[in-house]
C-alpha cells in the first residue's frame, strides 16, 4: 500500500469511455509471476507500433505523459477483467490517481487496496479538466485526500467520495489485510459455529 496524503501535479487526458482492462494492459502481458516491467506495457496496443516502436504522438510517449501524476479518463474506467495488473501498471508508469465520472467496481476495489486513487467527479468538472489540459498541459491541480478535494487552478474545489475505511488506510499507508487479521478471533468463532461448507481435499 502506497501512502497518499496530498498531491500537486499535472494531468493527461485519455477521454475514451469504457476503457477496459484489456486496453490498460493486454492479456499477453499477464504471463508474469511478479509485478516488474508492467509500466512499460501500460496501454500497449495504443502506445506502440506493430514493430514495437513507440508511437510518438500517443500521450504516454510524450514528456507531458511521463511527468503527469493524474490520468483523466472517460466514464466507466477499468471495466472488464479483475486483473490487478491494470492498477499495478498505471502506478508503475507513475500515476497516483485516475479521475473519471465513474469506475468499474473491481478496478476501484483493486486500486483502493494499492493506494491508487479513483477520483470520481461530475461531468462538468471532468470536461473542465480536459479543457484545462488542452489549453495548457502544464496546468496542475491539487488533491487532498484528508479533505477529499480536488482543487482547480482557479481555486475552485470539488469534493470526491471515498469510503472512510479505504481513506484512512491510504492516508496512513496501511495494508487492509491488517484489519482482517485483527479479527482472527471472530473468524475462528465463525468457523467453529458453521464448519466448512466444502472440502476440496476430500477425494
Amino acid at each position, binding site marked *: 500500500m502506497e501512502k497518499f496524503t496530498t498531491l500537486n501535479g499535472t494531468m493527461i487526458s485519455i*477521454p*475514451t*469511455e*469504457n476503457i*477496459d482492462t*484489456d*486496453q490498460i494492459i*493486454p*492479456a*499477453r502481458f*499477464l*504471463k*508474469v*509471476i*511478479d*509485478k516488474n516491467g508492467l509500466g512499460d506495457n501500460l496501454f500497449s*496496443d495504443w502506445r506502440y507500433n*506493430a514493430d514495437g516502436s513507440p508511437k510518438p504522438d500517443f500521450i504516454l510517449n510524450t514528456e507531458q505523459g511521463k511527468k503527469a501524476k493524474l490520468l483523466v479518463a*472517460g*466514464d*466507466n474506467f477499468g*471495466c*472488464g*477483467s*479483475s*486483473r*490487478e495488473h491494470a*492498477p499495478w501498471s498505471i502506478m508503475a508508469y507513475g500515476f497516483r490517481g485516475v479521475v473519471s465520472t*465513474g469506475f*468499474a*467496481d*473491481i478496478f476501484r*476495489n*483493486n486500486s483502493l*487496496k*494499492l493506494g491508487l486513487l479513483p477520483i470520481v467527479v461530475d461531468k462538468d468538472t471532468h470536461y473542465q479538466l480536459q479543457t484545462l489540459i488542452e489549453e495548457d498541459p502544464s496546468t496542475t491541480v491539487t488533491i487532498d485526500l484528508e479533505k477529499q478535494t480536488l482543487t482547480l487552478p482557479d481555486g475552485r474545489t470539488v469534493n470526491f467520495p471515498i*469510503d*472512510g*475505511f479505504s481513506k484512512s488506510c491510504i492516508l496512513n499507508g496501511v495494508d*487492509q*489485510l491488517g*484489519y*482482517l*487479521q485483527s*479479527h*482472527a478471533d*471472530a*473468524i475462528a468463532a*465463525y*468457523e467453529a459455529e*458453521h464448519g*466448512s*461448507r*466444502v*472440502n*476440496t*481435499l*476430500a*477425494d
Partner: protein
Amino acid sequence: MSTNGSSKTLFEKIWNQHVVVAESGNPAVLYIDLHLIHEVTSPQAFTGLREKGLTVRRPSQVMATMDHGIPTTPPDIPITDQMVLRQISQLEKNCEEFGIPLQGMHSDHRGIVHVIGPELGLTQPGMTVVCGDSHTSTHGAFGALAFGIGTSEIEHVFATQCLLQVKPKTYAIKVDGTLGNGVSAKDIILNLISRIGIGGGTGYVFEYMGSAIRALSMEERMTVCNMSIEGGARAGLVAPDNITYDYIAGRKLAPQDEAWDKAVAQWRTLPSDEGATFDQEITIDADALGPMITYGTNPGMGMGITDTIPDPDSVKDVSERQTLDKALKYMDIQPGQQLLGQDIDVVFLGSCTNSRISDLRVAANLIKGRKVADSLRMMVVPGSQDVKNQAENEGLDVIFKEAGAEWREAGCSMCIAMNGDQLSPGQYAVSTSNRNFEGRQGKGGRTFLASPLTATATAITGKITDVRTML
C-alpha cells in the same frame, strides 16, 4: 438494500449468513466458503504471503487449476512459451508448498476454473465463492454469491478466508415467457447488456428470475450469470430449485448421504421471500427475443441479428457518439447496414460462457452432415477435460472433425488469446465467449459475440447467419 418487513432477497440471506464482523463505518468482514485460483492472477498473492510469513488459512477451501495460458494443442506437443511454463510450474510449486489441491496439467478434471467448480460439485447454493477472475459470477447460477477479486484480495482470502466488502445493491432481472426456436440463454444476457449498458449494473448484484429463467438448465443459467460482469454487476444469482439440486447430486465433491439431505433442506430456504424488494428492476420478454449479436467493441454494443448497425450521428451524447464512432472504425463496419452476410474468418466455440457439454451438443447437432465453409476456420475448445471426454464418448468430436472443425484440448484459448490461439490483425471472428474488446482475441482482431447456434450457423455459411433460417 431494501426489504419489505422481514422479507429478504436471496442475496441478502447469503450476505447475512456470511458476515463475520460488521463495524459501523467499515466494510463488512465477509466469510468466503470457496476460493478458486488459477495460474495467471495468483502468483503475486503467494509472493505476498511469503514476504509476510503467512500461510493459507484453509487449503481445504481452495481449489487450483490451469486454464488461461495453457495451449489447446495435443498434450504430446511440448509447451514452448517459457513464460507460460514458468506460470505453470510456479502454480505447481505454490500449491505444493501451501497444501492446495490442484487440477494440474495431468488431471482429468483440469479445465476453465468456472467450468470445473460446478462440474466437481464444489459450487453449491448459499455459498460465497471468489476467484481472481471477473467471470466468477458464473457460479451465481447455483444461488451462490460469487464474484471476481483482484490479487491483493486473493492474498486476503488466503490469509484470513475473509474479504472486506461493502454491501452492494440488488437488481431484479425478470425474464418471462418462452424462448423461440434458435434463441438461447446467450441471447437473453446479450439483450440485457445491450439495454442497460456495460456500466448499468455497477454497484449491484443481479438476481435473474421469471419463467424463462426457471426453464433454463443449469448450464444455460451459467451462461446468463457468467456475463453479469459484462453488465457491470460483480455477481448475478439464480435462486436454486430442483434443477439445481439434480445437477449437483452425486458429483465428486458434493455433499453425500445425510449431509446431502441436510444441505438440500437448507438450500430450500434460500430463494427470495415473497414481497422482498429490489433496488432496481428490469423486465425482458423472452417471447420477443431473437438471436443477438454484438457489432462494437464492448458487450453492450449488441443488437438483434436482423437489426442494422446504429448510426453515431443519431447519438446525442458527445462522448457516447465518439465511443460508437471509434468502435465502428475499429470494426470497419458501416452504420445503417446489417451484419447478416458479413464475411467471417474464424469461429470460436468455447470459453466459460459457452463450452459446456450442452453447448457442444447444440453445435454438433447443427453441423452434423454439414461442412465448415472453406473460407473459415472453426475452433471447438471444450471447457474442461471432463467435458472433452464426455463429448468424445458421445461422438461429438467426430462430428466436428468430419465437418472440418478443429477439436482441441480444454482451456480458455482464444477467449483471451494468451496461449497462441488468436486472431491476426484485421481478422473477423464470431465467438461464443464474453468479451469483444479491442484486441481481446488477438491484437487488431475483431470479434462479434453470439450464441453457439449463431456461431455454428456462421461457420457453415462463412458469413454471419441467422440460425433460424437453418432450423
